[in-house]
């Protein structure tokens, strides 16, 4: 019973589509575990099954030792789920929404008031408690969602893409609350399509087409990426990307704003080859340097390999 979340061989189909295919992972208490992947990878489906609002076709889910598949209602008092789409009542005020969710979870009045004030303070929503939720900005709505999810002090918090469409300031406040919760021992599982956000998690599962490609700490995932990464800064990175396709030793190319990340089998051998290829058509570029991979590089490396394997 050491794990806060343990799922095994979880599978869910929608008609012919296998949305989640034999997914297994465990999350330790107090972890911030991230599900990372593009739209359609199966993140939301996993979240919904964990929240007990969608039943799996196969597999097991244990939340704090409670079998969610067999008895979802037993798990619900201990978890909080924040759906991807804003799930609160837009025609109720901030305070009314908080109160409603507190009542549903049977939070005593005193505790509700104290904890509500604390959370409103942390989310900088105090001045807006009488505003209708529908009139809040995107970031405020997500913070209100988090407050409603936290008003009853859950053991497990499930957040489905909680910061999509949220401004940077609100996002920072959002994460500050999450870190606080971790201190209190709340286990957090969140999904995200933002790679920079993924780096903040203690562990990640990289999800693609309903399957886990890799699951580890961000650090170890980066270390485990096959090959090395070279960055080529350029005024016209698209031209660079086009020119470098097919250079021997190049495993993958990824456009990163004003630069191209080139994954190669051997950095020392590949760097001069790249420079030579770019010199031919005279494409201007900055110094080619070895860089540490980000989660996005790791993800593209894994998924790119997978697509190639499927094609072969």
């Amino acid at each position, binding site marked *: 019973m050491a794990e806060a979340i343990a799922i095994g061989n979880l599978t869910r189909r929608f008609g012919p589509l296998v949305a989640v295919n034999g997914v297994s992972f465990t999350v330790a208490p107090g972890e911030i575990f991230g599900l990372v992947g593009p739209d359609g990878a199966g993140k939301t489906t996993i979240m919904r099954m964990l929240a007990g609002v969608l039943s799996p076709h196969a597999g097991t889910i244990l939340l704090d030792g409670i079998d969610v598949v067999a008895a979802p209602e037993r798990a619900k008092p201990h978890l909080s789920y924040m759906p991807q*789409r804003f799930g609160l009542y837009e025609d109720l005020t901030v305070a009314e929404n908080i109160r409603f969710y507190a009542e549903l979870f049977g939070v005593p009045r005193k505790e509700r008031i104290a904890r509500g004030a604390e959370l409103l303070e942390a989310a900088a929503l105090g001045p807006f408690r009488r505003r209708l939720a529908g009139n809040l900005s995107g970031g405020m709505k997500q913070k209100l969602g988090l407050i409603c999810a936290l008003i009853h002090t859950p053991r497990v918090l499930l957040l489905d893409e909680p910061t999509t469409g949220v401004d940077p300031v609100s996002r920072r406040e959002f994460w500050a609350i999450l870190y606080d919760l971790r201190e209190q021992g709340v286990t957090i599982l969140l999904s995200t399509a933002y790679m920079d956000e993924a780096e903040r998690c203690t562990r990640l599962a990289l999800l693609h087409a309903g399957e886990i490609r890799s699951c580890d700490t961000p650090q170890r995932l980066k270390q485990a990426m096959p090959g090395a990464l070279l960055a080529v800064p350029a005024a016209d990175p698209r031209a660079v990307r086009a020119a470098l396709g097919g250079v021997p030793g190049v495993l993958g190319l990824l456009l990163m704003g004003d630069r191209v990340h080139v994954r190669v089998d051997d950095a020392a051998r590949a760097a001069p080859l790249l420079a030579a290829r770019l010199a031919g058509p005279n494409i201007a570029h900055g110094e080619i340097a070895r860089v540490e991979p980000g989660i996005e590089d790791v993800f593209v490396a894994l998924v790119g390999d997978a697509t190639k394997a499927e094609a072969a």
Partner: protein
Amino acid sequence: MSLRRVLALGFKEFLQVWRDPRSLAVALLMPLMQMVLLGYGVSLDIRRVPLCVQDQENSTESRALVEDFVASGWFAITRTLPDNAAVRTAMDREQCIGALVIPVDFSRVLAATGQAPVQSIFDATDTNTTNIAIGYAEGVISLATADFAARWEAAHGTRPTRVGVVDFEPRVWFNEGLDSKNFIIPGVVAVILALVGAQLTSLTISREWERGTMEQLISTPVQPIELMLGKLVPYFAIGLFDAAFCLAAAIFWFRVPFLGSIVTLALTTSLFTFVVLGIGYLISVRIRSQIGASQVALVLTMLPTTLLSGYTFPIDQMPAAIRALTFIVYPRYYVSILRAVFLKGSGVAELAFPMLALTLYAVFIIWVAARAFRKSLD
């Protein structure tokens, strides 16, 4: 079950209705509008029937008879016509639905024998209206006959031998005395309650699905029975308010005689409101779009309530198969209860059967509705 969660849900639902102009309009304006429309619009009484006159004699006596028709208030003379062909044309053009033909020797025959035939021709395409109009015509004729007999007696000292061959008087009295509104208005209250009640609750669950609030709601420990009760509480209050409004309008505005007790009325009305809200809720659970739920609620309440409840079409005149069908049409029980309470002053003891039927209905609907909701997205 947690009372706290029921109350939280009820309060939330109340706030939502209170802040939604559309729901408020359905809850408060619809009953008012329908009470006016149905209360004034639906009447089985027919007044000012358009009538043509073909007075072949044009004597004092014949004109007096025409005058009797006008004075009765049941008829309006729209045309004076020369011959039968013109009568036909007038009916085709819908200028009249009946014609009164007074023969050329009317006053002479009348003076000689004390009796003279007049002919009436009616367009029977609308049999209901025509039947009623014929009844009115017979009434006017028989009054005129009685009047003539009195004058004859005064002049001759004896009653005319063949006057008033057929005595139509009872029909006249019947129509004059019984205003159809007393029969219709209590039924109107039932129709409005069924319509408004089912409309209100038919949207409550589908609204949560459409606005995306259901997903988060079902991730909480709330139980289906709590959700149902919480959702019904505010609408029950609104339904009873609407019922009180309609019943008060029936008694004080439309002046339907009320002979029964308020307690019986309150009890049976609560029961009916409960059934209606339960049906709306059940529809809401089964149909996830607001438009769809509203449409189904309209069909499921409007049709049986207006056609099969006995509100306008008497149940005992229906074919046996349809009559059997009306036993599952819940509004029929409330319509008959309302009429009995209003017009006969019936109490709980006399109403045991329809009340039992409504109670069974309520229990059944709530049982089905409570089980119909699944806390799941699949």
